[in-house]
């Protein structure tokens, strides 16, 4: 049980490469403790998103070992990896909402995949959409929502299934400062409830305003002041 709350994410000498652009991350080792809040910072193209992709199992490392919730991801079957992903909420940089579906259906998707009953979906989803201030947009199609609204739907979708780990890739990238701050408060609320949060951002002001450890990605390697490193 103790382990469950220690190493939510563990990278050991992890490298990652894309077929066309070569190695983008080199020999990265880090550990993220349960219930912690981390920023991943770095300039554009430094490898922040690649690091996030490794964390939500969208990509396999070319070298090294990754453990999520204490499980070596390379030893998992496809179904096991899916089960693991259900414990991870992801807010994508470009939201990745399903355009022909309503805000309600987009947010309900993780619950439907997990086989939650419709009655519970109809109870939880509107409640969460109210929490992110979209109570009037429940039945609106994703394409009719503004950038900020789409982002909040994406956040609601990421947290609806109460993930143990929430990864947000540039979540404030396309919203104004006021919404960005509100969003960060929202993520802090989730963190207080025990969710481990990792936010990839190049917004230095935000990083300075919210005092959380920082993992800095530079030229495919990492540095920083946090206790995240091995």
């Amino acid at each position, binding site marked *: 049980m103790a382990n469950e709350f220690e190493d939510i994410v563990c990278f050991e000498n992890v490298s990652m490469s894309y077929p066309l652009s070569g190695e983008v991350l080199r020999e990265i080792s880090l550990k993220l403790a349960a219930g912690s809040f981390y920023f991943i910072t770095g300039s554009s193209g430094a490898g922040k998103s690649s690091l996030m992709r490794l964390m939500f199992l969208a990509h396999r490392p070319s070298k090294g070992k990754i453990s999520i919730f204490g499980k070596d991801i390379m030893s998992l079957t496809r179904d096991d990896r*899916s089960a693991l*992903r*259900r414990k991870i909420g992801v807010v994508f940089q470009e939201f990745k909402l*399903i355009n022909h579906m309503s805000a309600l*259906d987009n947010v309900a998707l993780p619950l*439907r*995949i997990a086989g939650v009953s419709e009655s519970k979906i109809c109870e939880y989803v509107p409640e969460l959409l109210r929490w992110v201030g979209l109570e009037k947009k*429940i*039945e609106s199609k994703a394409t009719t929502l503004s950038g900020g609204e789409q982002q909040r739907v994406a956040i609601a979708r990421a947290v609806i299934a109460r993930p143990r780990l929430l990864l947000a890739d540039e979540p404030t990238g396309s919203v104004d400062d006021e919404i960005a701050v509100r969003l960060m408060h929202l993520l802090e609320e989730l963190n207080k409830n025990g969710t481990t949060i990792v936010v990839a951002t190049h917004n230095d002001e935000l990083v300075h305003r919210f005092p959380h450890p920082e993992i800095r990605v530079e030229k495919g390697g990492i540095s920083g002041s946090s206790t995240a490193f091995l």
Partner: protein
Amino acid sequence: MVRPLRSSRSMHNRLLPFRGDPISRYLPIIVGLLVFVSTLALAAGMFFYSTGDTWQKNMSGTLTVEIPAKAAKDNAVETIVALLIKNPKIVSAKVVSNKEVDELLEPWLGSDISELDLPLPVLVDVMVLPGESVDIDGLSSELKKIAPSVILDDHSDWLLGVREFFDFVQRIYFTVISVIIMSVVATVILTTRTGLAINHDIVEVLYFIGATDLYVAQRFQIQTLLLLGPSALVGFLAGVGAVCMVQAHGEGVGGGMFPDFSLSMLQWFGLAALPLVKTLLLILTVGLTVRFRLGKMM
């Protein structure tokens, strides 16, 4: 009064829309036509199978002794019948009455055959014990001792020809059905692969939020059924309608020479199983295609 939230389950089933691409537009028509043709082919194949089988059953185990009119004198017929009945493998030997012969010839010679004064042969209908075979050559030579011009016919020559013909036609029909089924499978694989390519972004999102291969495959199966199910059903019903029409119009046309085109209850059930089998095949094909492709994509 608060309006209830619009049910989303149906939207969930349409999670992966086939977005009006040419394949999705025309495929239902093609599948409908293929199902229509395969229904007709299966009905015809089953009809030929049962007809061939019925003829075989009716004709095997029977012999016909033909005594030319000139030879049917001086108790020859009675002697022949007595000889036949003495054979332990023969159940019965019955002289076909003039009336029955007239009825057999009526389609060709009309109803006033007796007035034509034709030298018609006497026919003896012989039933052999089920599962037994008579020594045709031996029996024939014994009969020829009574009347040299007598002919013993075990129908084997023409029966073999008919059987071979029916088997051939039947094989053709089932080949046609197999080709149609393979075409449907190929088109379904094509549609599924196109659907996967079109909906790559959605499939990716589903994966990132924890969907399994089975879940994604089920969404495609539902979508494919929604796309192709109605047209396949229409094609099947049209095929059944056509079979019923042929059955209604063909009644009595054979004049006793050919059996009426009709299907037994069991064959109707077999025909009704066609859409079920095709649906199962379709679901299986979509599921396997999606899971195979996903293994490569993600």
